[in-house]
């Protein structure tokens, strides 16, 4: 029995859960449901809840009100970034309360192109890359040892600045710009430290299973669009990926009606549709090559994508 768990906390705005394109959890679940109807899907909604409309019933997922596990430590409340740092503990704690033995987690900006199953690894070890956007594990000794060691590192970092700095030093993925100090914990730095100390307790996912750098690869199952910025009217609307790229649009339109999509994308839906292009083609034509994308400090922006699409089309003509 497997479960896919999402984890969201909302910024202060009056939006509904489904039309916040900065955190496109409904669009992400729609791509998942188009490729897999069997896996149980849960969304841990931390903090103040939002209106989900009819999407939980329509896409067969459950929304679970949740409190940040890491906030049991008062000191964690001092930094907004610790909300991100709490996600693994939140997922693991919730998973412990369910009968599912295989637990998968995906970020809200992970868009599925193919069924995640069968997975590449059994999950007996904790399966992850250097980014926490997607991971899975079975409730088996090695995976659980890895998780507990990771959680210990995380709590440790809240209190021991020297140890926290050590975790950043071993993190070759690099901490994001929001983590400005070496003394502020970051989950992926703790992950890097845990991977270093427990090399035999984890497996490294391939780009086929978690494509983080938009690397063109055969049979890719999921694209994690964290390295793209879909800036539109001053906001990073990653949810646009599901309408701008035809691969995702073809999937979401299988499980959502045009009326649903209008609810999610609002008045600009028609405009977004007009920009639609094949993601695969763009990648193959080297328009979205990984060298253009770099790491998160230098993301690809929607304007560039649109420009690329336009010039690509002109070239095609």
């Amino acid at each position, binding site marked *: 029995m497997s479960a896919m768990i999402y984890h969201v906390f909302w910024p202060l705005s009056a939006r509904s859960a489904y039309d916040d394109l900065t955190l496109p959890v409904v669009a992400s679940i729609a791509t998942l449901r188009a490729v897999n109807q069997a896996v149980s899907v849960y969304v841990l909604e931390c903090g103040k809840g939002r209106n989900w409309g009819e999407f939980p019933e329509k896409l067969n997922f459950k929304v679970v009100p949740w409190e940040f596990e890491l906030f049991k430590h008062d000191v964690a409340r001092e930094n907004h970034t610790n909300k991100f740092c709490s996600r693994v503990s939140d997922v693991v704690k919730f998973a412990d309360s369910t009968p599912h033995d295989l637990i998968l987690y995906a970020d809200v900006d992970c868009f599925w192109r193919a069924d995640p199953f069968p997975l590449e690894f059994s999950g007996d070890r904790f399966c992850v890359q250097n980014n926490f956007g997607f991971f899975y594990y079975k409730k088996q000794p090695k995976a659980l*040892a890895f998780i507990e060691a990771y959680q210990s590192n995380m709590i440790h970092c809240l209190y021991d600045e020297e140890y926290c700095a050590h975790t950043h030093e071993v993190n070759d993925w690099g901490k994001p710009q929001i983590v400005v100090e070496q003394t502020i914990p970051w989950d992926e730095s703790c992950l890097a*430290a845990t991977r270093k100390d*427990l090399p035999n307790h984890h497996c490294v996912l391939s780009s086929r299973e978690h494509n983080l750098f938009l690397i063109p690869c055969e049979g890719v199952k999921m694209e994690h669009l964290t390295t793209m910025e879909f800036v539109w009217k001053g906001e990073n609307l990653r949810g646009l990926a599901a309408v701008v790229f035809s691969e995702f649009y073809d999937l979401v339109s299988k499980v959502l009606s045009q009326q649903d999509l209008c609810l999610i994308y609002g008045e600009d839906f028609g405009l977004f549709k007009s920009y639609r292009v094949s993601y695969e083609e763009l990648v193959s034509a080297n328009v979205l090559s990984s060298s253009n994308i770099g790491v998160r400090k230098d993301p690809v922006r929607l304007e560039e994508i649109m420009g690329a699409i336009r010039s690509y089309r002109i070239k095609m003509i």
Partner: protein
Amino acid sequence: MCSASLGFFCWMIDTPMKPAVIYHVFWRDNGRDAYNDMQVPVVLAISTLRAVNPTIPIYVLECGQVRREWSHFPEKLHFSVVYADFELEKKHHAALHSASKSSVVCSRLSDVNEFAKQIPEDLIIYSDADVFWLRDPLPLDCAGEKRFCLNNNTGFFYYDKNSSEANWFLDVFQSYLITSLYNDDFCRRAHKINRWDTGGMERQRMWLEPCLQMVYKDIPDCCCSISKKEHGFWGCEDPKMFHPAGLNVEWDGCYHLRGFIPFLMLEFYHLVESVLSESDFKLIYRGYLRFLRSVKKVSFHDKLFNIALSKSKSGGKPEFMSAVIKHGGFLPRITFL
């Protein structure tokens, strides 16, 4: 507020916490019984506690794979033996058993805390198997304290199991301990700042006290420091109990025979004698009994004995047996036959 809810409120604040003492033992497979292992003298420790407090609930967590015979002592001294697994071992078996790095001793706080959740008592008192009581531990010095109560050594501590502050400490301490299990650099750093003697232990080895020191350093207000009087080591004045950590007790090539202490020290002997019979002594001390009876008992308060002890050293630590014999010597043969 109506009278019924006022009554309930008063009951809430007046109800004293229910204490329980928990011991934590694990055995080597060397053929001994639980009651006659002089290196882990848990039955003698409980005897001193029963002599000063006849009613407090006592639980012994017998952890690990090796089980031992307890004879009639659980009934006689009114304590329960509970089999338990090492909590740390459940997830970190391989790391915990890597010979050079760690020990199941480090599972102590986790095991006690996990077991504490299953019992009705809420004031959890932990005592090492070599802690001998001179007076009733109750009332505790820090009664009513919400923080975790201990000093530099984890051989004795107590806490309110429902207190968020105490659980906070346990959570952080546990996280430091697990980090030290896998991260050699952190382990070395912890040993570097540790002021508690770890017996020349390798600096890459995970251990309770160095982790505790790190927690103290990073979160100085996380626990309530108990006095030396309440957790007494050698040289403390008028302690409630004596914990011979840091004291060697050697005889006939055997080390750490701490079970000799309650027989050879007058204050403890009077206490254990009040709860154990002659046949109990024979069961507990077996082949050592004749020898121990030949030695003159010493007093905790005897200044000359204390001087003898401070001068008798073995491996840099005070050596109890040579000080006892040097100070009191042997009795005339007729008195112990």
